[in-house]
């Protein structure tokens, strides 16, 4: 809320006590509500003075410009060329002198306009910083006229309220009471311990009785806890006096006419929204507050024809809906220049119903905002009566005696019993009963002690946010001052704390991958449906979870794999000419299983492109290929220490992967992941170069039994090696050969290592040559040549017969 410092000063001796706006704002921020901004409307303006138009002639070379003589001091009259259509001799106007600064820091210079000298500028409000939404509409196309008694040569700011300082507060939802001058005055009186001089004006009713001129009823009591109306007749709609217009525009509200302005003034002063119906235009004078009928039509003040739903709430005159309750009035009963009588409504509407209606229709107003956050029932009568007072005072209206009442505001103080011991226990303070009582006095909350610990506090209805002792702890803490709280650490039973085994292993997993050269990425979990479906480890789950009402088409579904996000990262780097990318990401994927929520599975994935190490003066670049990535994955899996057997099985079924360069990764025969090259077509879609990826179901790997941690005896007897080179068909895999070797390897075979692979020239087509080193070792003796030779021969024979290998 834009709170006027000058308005506050009407009720609180702020200036008198030397409390300046900046300090006040700081104090509010530290004690009450957040502050968006503190500013004066005249900030940045310079040399704007009151001028009197003494003469005005049409410009000889223009059909719309005028050459004005404007008196700006007792002795000085300036010639100023003005384009405003409403310029008029005898009016007091805003003159920007040569050297003045107007809106946007524009400097006014002496100049010639179509050959005629012009020594300044006559200004519209918008030109000195008023926003289009606030500047009165009548002056939209022209300059502003100051009051006739404005003194020529004076600075214009005080005449426009621009010398005020505005403290723009940012309220949390609980402090709806601070959406009024009343609430701010109360809080500041408590904060600074100042006398509270808030004033109301009592209504003066005429002799005319209400009788059946107006009645109000509630069709559903839940809609409006309070609903009252006054009838004011014989009034004259006109512009409001300057003091009122200033109060509104400094609060960001456009002055319209005296009737509407008075309702807005009361809204600001009390936080009580009012609505004025043109009494004559009401189709019936029997007012009902009710739910709308589905499909009911209402054209609101903004000219929009709205089709209502049964959840909406309306004010009806007779059968006809004439306003959206708490949200916006109807066009057909709107106050205009011809209006002479108004039915003035003061109500409290159900916050939730108003909130739903405002959200559904996207109609958020100063009124609806207040209804949503709560209305002070204590001041409803004061607010309604003061509005009537001003309608009499400023519009010459006569207030009909009595009111039409559908529901009176109900309120009572809320009694909360505080324990001094408990207050100190929660805040960590050592406050005494007397200190707490003193703080309650400052808040103007009645309090009396029951014993030396218990204090009963009567919280008035104007602070509807305070319901529990905890709410009062906050009042005590903020008034006592958060700076005065001590700083301690919890002193309590020792708790062990620590990471769970899974948490520790997830962290170790990250460190392993970083050690292997991959940098951690964190990508978006929300993506497109198509990307969410790609690169799934388990291809059987096809449909991702989707948002009901997404914000952007790029983020509509939860990912089912991590790779697609990493590929977007690769693309982002590639587009920025970063060729070498090695990323991993660890996190959740979301797999719908038919339940209310998807299964969230911990996965880890990597994407590598370009070179693992860049070319340098010392060695050639090491480009990424399938085996480079497989090496990373193998070492990573080795670190995970799962007990089961990890195997790699060629897989050509994954649509996003290269059919000849992809392997499923199996743990004891179950697929736990895959690795390989991204299919070139898919890479093209992502606009990325040749990229290798892997993804693993980390949850499954972490859940699997771990390798034995027992020490393995290291033989002290020498090992013997034999090399074997074999020529086999291209289709025979390394894994098949190694398995065959191991099958007939015998008890002493410890290791089989591939050391060469050759295909191409000098070999028959469809053949390849592989060479292995077989290592034999016994734990209890030095092996004899014969034993090794025998074992080796068995392997050779087996390879020849089962794989058709030709030993070379």
């Amino acid at each position: 809320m834009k709170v006027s410092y000058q308005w506050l000063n009407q009720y609180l001796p702020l200036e008198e006590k030397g409390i300046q706006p900046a300090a006040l704002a700081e104090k509010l921020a530290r004690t009450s509500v957040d502050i968006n901004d503190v500013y004066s409307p005249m900030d940045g303006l310079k040399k704007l003075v009151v001028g009197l138009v003494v003469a005005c002639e049409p410009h000889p070379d223009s059909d719309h410009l005028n050459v004005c003589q404007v008196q700006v001091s007792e002795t000085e009259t300036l010639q100023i060329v003005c384009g405003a259509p409403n310029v008029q001799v005898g009016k007091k106007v805003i003159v920007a002198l040569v050297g003045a600064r107007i809106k946007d820091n524009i400097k006014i210079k002496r100049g010639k306009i179509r050959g005629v000298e012009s020594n300044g500028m006559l200004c519209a409000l918008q030109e000195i910083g008023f926003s289009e939404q606030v500047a009165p509409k009548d002056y939209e196309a022209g300059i502003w006229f100051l009051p006739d008694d404005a003194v020529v040569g004076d600075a214009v700011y005080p005449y426009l309220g621009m010398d005020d300082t505005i403290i723009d507060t940012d309220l949390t939802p609980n402090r709806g009471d601070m959406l009024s001058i009343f609430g701010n005055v109360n809080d500041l009186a408590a904060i600074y311990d100042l006398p509270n001089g808030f004033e109301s004006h009592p209504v003066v009713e005429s002799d005319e009785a209400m009788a059946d001129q107006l009645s109000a009823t509630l069709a559903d009591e839940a809609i409006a806890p309070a609903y009252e109306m006054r009838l004011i007749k014989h009034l004259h709609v006109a512009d409001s006096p300057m003091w009122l217009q200033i109060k509104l525009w400094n609060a960001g509200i456009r002055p319209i006419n005296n009737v509407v302005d008075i309702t807005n003034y009361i809204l600001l002063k009390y936080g009580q929204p009012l609505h004025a119906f043109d009494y004559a235009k009401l189709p019936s004078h029997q007012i009902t507050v009710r739910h709308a009928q589905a499909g009911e039509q209402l054209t609101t003040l903004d000219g929009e024809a709205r089709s209502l739903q049964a959840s909406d709430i309306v004010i009806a005159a007779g059968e006809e809906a004439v306003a959206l309750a708490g949200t916006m009035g109807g066009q057909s009963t709107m106050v205009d220049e011809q209006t002479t009588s108004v039915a003035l409504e003061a109500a409290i509407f159900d916050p939730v119903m108003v909130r739903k209606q405002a959200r559904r229709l996207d109609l958020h107003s100063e009124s609806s905002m207040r209804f949503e956050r709560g209305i002070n029932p204590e001041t409803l009568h004061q607010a309604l009566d003061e509005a009537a007072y001003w309608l009499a005072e400023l519009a010459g209206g006569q207030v009909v005696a009595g009111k039409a009442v559908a529901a009176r505001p109900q309120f009572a103080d809320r009694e909360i019993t505080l324990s001094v011991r408990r207050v100190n226990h929660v805040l960590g303070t050592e406050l005494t009963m007397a200190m707490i009582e003193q703080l309650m006095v400052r808040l103007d909350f009645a309090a009396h002690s029951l014993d030396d610990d218990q204090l009963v506090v009567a919280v008035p209805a104007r602070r509807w946010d305070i319901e529990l002792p905890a709410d009062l702890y906050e009042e005590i803490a903020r008034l006592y001052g958060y700076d005065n709280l001590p700083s301690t650490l919890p002193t309590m039973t020792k708790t062990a704390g620590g990471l769970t085994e899974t948490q520790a292993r997830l962290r170790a997993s990250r460190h392993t991958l970083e050690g292997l050269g991959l940098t951690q990425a964190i990508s978006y979990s929300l993506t497109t449906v198509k990307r969410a479906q790609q690169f799934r480890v388990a291809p059987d789950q096809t449909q991702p979870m989707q948002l009901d009402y997404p914000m952007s088409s790029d983020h509509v579904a939860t990912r089912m794999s991590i790779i697609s996000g990493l590929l977007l990262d690769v693309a982002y780097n590639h587009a920025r000419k970063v060729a070498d990318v090695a990323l991993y990401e660890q996190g959740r994927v979301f797999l719908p299983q038919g339940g209310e929520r998807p299964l969230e599975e911990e996965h880890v994935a990597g994407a590598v492109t370009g070179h693992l190490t860049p070319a340098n003066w010392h060695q050639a670049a090491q480009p990424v290929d399938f085996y480079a990535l497989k090496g990373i994955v193998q070492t990573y899996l080795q670190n995970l220490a799962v007990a089961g057997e990890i195997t790699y099985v060629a897989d050509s079924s994954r649509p996003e992967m290269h059919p000849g360069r992809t392997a499923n990764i199996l743990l004891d025969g179950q697929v736990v992941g895959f690795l390989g090259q991204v299919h070139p077509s898919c890479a093209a879609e992502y606009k990325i170069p040749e990229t290798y990826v892997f993804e693993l179901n980390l949850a499954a790997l972490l859940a699997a039994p771990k390798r034995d941690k027992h020490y393995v005896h290291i033989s002290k007897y020498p090992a013997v090696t034999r090399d074997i080179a074999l020529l086999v068909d291209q289709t025979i895999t390394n894994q098949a050969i190694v398995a065959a070797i191991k099958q007939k390897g015998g008890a002493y075979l410890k290791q089989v290592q591939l050391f060469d692979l050759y295909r191409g020239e000098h070999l028959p087509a469809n053949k390849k040559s592989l060479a292995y080193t077989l290592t034999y070792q016994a734990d209890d003796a030095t092996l004899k040549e014969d034993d090794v030779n025998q074992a080796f021969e068995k392997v050779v024979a087996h390879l020849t017969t089962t794989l058709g290998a030709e030993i070379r």
Partner: protein
Amino acid sequence: MGLREKLEELRKQGIQEIKASADLDHLNDIRVKMLGKKGPLTTVLRGMKDLSKEERPKVGKFANEIRDELAQALEAKKAELATARLNAKLAAETLDVTLPGTPTVQGQPHVIQQIIDQLVDLFVGMGYQVAVGDEVEQDEYNFERLNLPKDHPARDMQDTFYVTPSVLMRTQTSPMQARMMEKHDFANGPLKMISPGKVYRRDTDDATHSHQFHQVEGLVVGEHVTMADLKGTLEVVAKTLFGDELAVRLRPSYFPFTEPSVEADITCFNCLGQGCAICKHTGWLEVLGAGMVHPNVLKMSGVDPEVYGGFAFGLGPDRFAMIKYVVEDIRDFYQNDVRFLNQFNQKG
């Protein structure tokens, strides 16, 4: 010339030759020549038989002295030459040590992960447990159990991605508060936990807003937990993350799940309160929201608010990283430009 003179001559000549020798092979030749069986010394000693009985031992002793002296000189020269040869070899092997080292591969943790890990380590050290929750949550745990019933105006503070009317992308890691409290047996002592993780808001991404970011939620509930403890805990956090003794100041705020609720500012680490561009010349940085757990939240999780109480806080690692490293665009964290990621290679 007497035998003694001859020996003296041999000594002189031998020492001279040894001194003059410039390489090990030549030195070896000298050794063979001088001390070998056909060498002059041996020849001279053969002439000893012509000496008198009295002379013989004296000359013999003298001859032995000379032999030892020459042998020593040879050894010394040998060592000298070996050192020289090694030095020459080493000199020939000299490298330009300013040439760059061979690149090795090393990855980095993401900067946000670094901050989360730092916080986790800090709190684990203070006896907290770590509770990681699901990112797709029930409305009940994300809002209702945190004292945010449906249609509560404070729900406007957090625009939410809903999946169904009862399931959503969590907007905070606070749901773990309720999930942990209802499981915790307070007879075994207080509950001290943090919950780090990704959270989501229905926001349009720009430099300062992201539909995905991170949160570390903290909760301490026990019989003797005060707001002063909250203040002290936050001071430790500030010191751990920014490395200085920074003051913490609390300002009133509002969260439905805490009462009193506060916003915590820390002294700007950059200017230490003097005012600078990072803190927008206020000397303070707004870093987190916190408060004393609302009695309704305790009650809904089956904890008696008359006996137990505590504090909760929510830290934003993204915001911390932006402040600490003066990152201007939050999207940088999620686009993963490797040149960006690799800047934060500080271990510990």
